[in-house]
């Protein structure tokens, strides 16, 4: 089964206007499997949600994290149960903080890398210079409230350029929830898991394997069948998802992008047409960013 994750959410413990209880209720109402609490520079909401979940045992899991909100960019950690200080944040050596977080068993992601920072909001753009992605689990390629072309498109392109160069870094999306925003037709993160399984452990495994989907509600999956790759559509029943009349699969490699009609629900692509590394994406109709529905895990042949 596929599990839906909402990995970037705030509460009144930092600058949002929803309480921990309200965040939990919003996630439950929208059928989320696992959500993270990632308040700015504080872990104070974690024990509040832990207490509610322990007492009421609702059918949802929580990842206890924080968003490092630094002067040079935001590092969203959907899991960070032990606070790791960031006093010595170094714009030219952010690897030190990523490494310290990973030693504390965190999950680490670069949040909204191309958001506007100064003079709009200092620190929102990721201005740190990462040269070693070893301890970066993912890039938040879509931050839902941000403008599609100005902010999210360069984020998607940056991630694609990294993985096409061979970097092992996964892609995720975030609501960056600060209030009661609708999650319909917004991108969420999906990963494979088992009914009743530990969603955080499954997320860790998915990130390590680069097996995360960023999607509005329809996934594209792939199998190898002899000399052919078979891609399928998979409706994950995300509330508010509006199906498209037609679907197009694209495979982007280092040199080009090839499009395939997948409206029927599946398409067979000879392996000879796929480069050693390719990024599958799904569009509803014409191939343009406004129609993007899903970014699927990178194919490595």
């Amino acid at each position, binding site marked *: 089964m596929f599990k839906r994750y909402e990995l970037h959410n705030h509460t009144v413990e930092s600058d949002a206007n929803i309480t921990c209880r309200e965040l939990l209720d919003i996630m439950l109402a929208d059928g989320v499997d696992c959500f993270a609490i990632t308040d700015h*520079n*504080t872990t104070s909401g974690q024990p509040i949600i832990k207490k509610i979940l322990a007492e009421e045992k609702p059918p949802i899991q929580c990842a206890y994290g924080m968003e490092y909100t630094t*002067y040079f960019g935001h590092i969203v950690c959907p899991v960070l149960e032990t606070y790791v200080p960031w006093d010595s944040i170094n714009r030219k050596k952010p690897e030190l903080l990523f490494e310290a977080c990973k030693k504390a068993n965190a999950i680490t992601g670069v949040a909204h890398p191309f958001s506007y920072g100064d003079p709009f909001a200092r620190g929102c753009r990721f201005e740190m210079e990462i040269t070693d992605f070893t301890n970066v689990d993912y890039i938040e390629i879509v931050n839902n409230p941000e403008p599609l072309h100005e902010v999210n498109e360069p984020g998607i392109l940056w991630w694609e350029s990294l993985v096409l160069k061979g970097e092992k870094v996964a892609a995720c999306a975030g609501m960056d929830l600060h209030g009661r925003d609708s999650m319909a037709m917004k991108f969420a993160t999906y990963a494979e898991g088992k009914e009743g399984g530990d969603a955080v452990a499954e997320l860790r495994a998915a990130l390590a394997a680069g097996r995360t989907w960023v999607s509005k509600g329809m996934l594209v999956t792939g199998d190898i069948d002899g000399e052919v790759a078979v891609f399928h559509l998979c409706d994950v029943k995300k509330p508010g998802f509006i199906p498209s009349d037609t679907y197009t699969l694209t495979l982007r490699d280092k040199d080009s992008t090839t499009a395939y009609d997948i409206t029927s629900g599946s398409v067979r692509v000879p392996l000879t047409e796929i480069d050693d590394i390719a990024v599958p994406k799904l569009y509803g109709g014409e191939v343009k960013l406004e129609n993007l529905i899903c970014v699927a895990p990178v194919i490595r042949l």
Partner: protein
Amino acid sequence: MKEVYRVEGIVNRGFVGQITYMVNLEEPFSKLDIHFVFDASKRKFSPDEATPELIADTVAVCKKNYDLDIDENRARGIILGDMKTEIHTLATLNDEFLGCIHRQMTDRHMFFDGVNGTATEGCIPRERFEGVLKVTVLAFNVIKDGTRYELTVSGE
């Protein structure tokens, strides 16, 4: 509550970084209040401060940082609407995280009530306060010279 220490400071326009104050809480407290305030009049620009020079600077910064072409009206809107002095506070006790207030406020308390087990949003409740307290002033953005702030720590 008993005042443990009070400090005042001034930060200049463009300062980005942090200032940490450390004090030994030699007697145990069951309540702690960390009060931080900075000059509210320095937080935003007023319409008459949106000078042609500042507007030109803003247009140039948007072009340089984001390749964003904005006209003077948009720049004026950014100056009056978005640009702000943003200073937050974070505290640790014996190197354990106590909390952080990351909200757009010029006057804030980090209040811990160890008797009732409560704390201000952003802070983690605890019963006892003794040892090395570090309070860090996090200056994300300072838009005007001479921005004064005051930090007071009190215990009970």
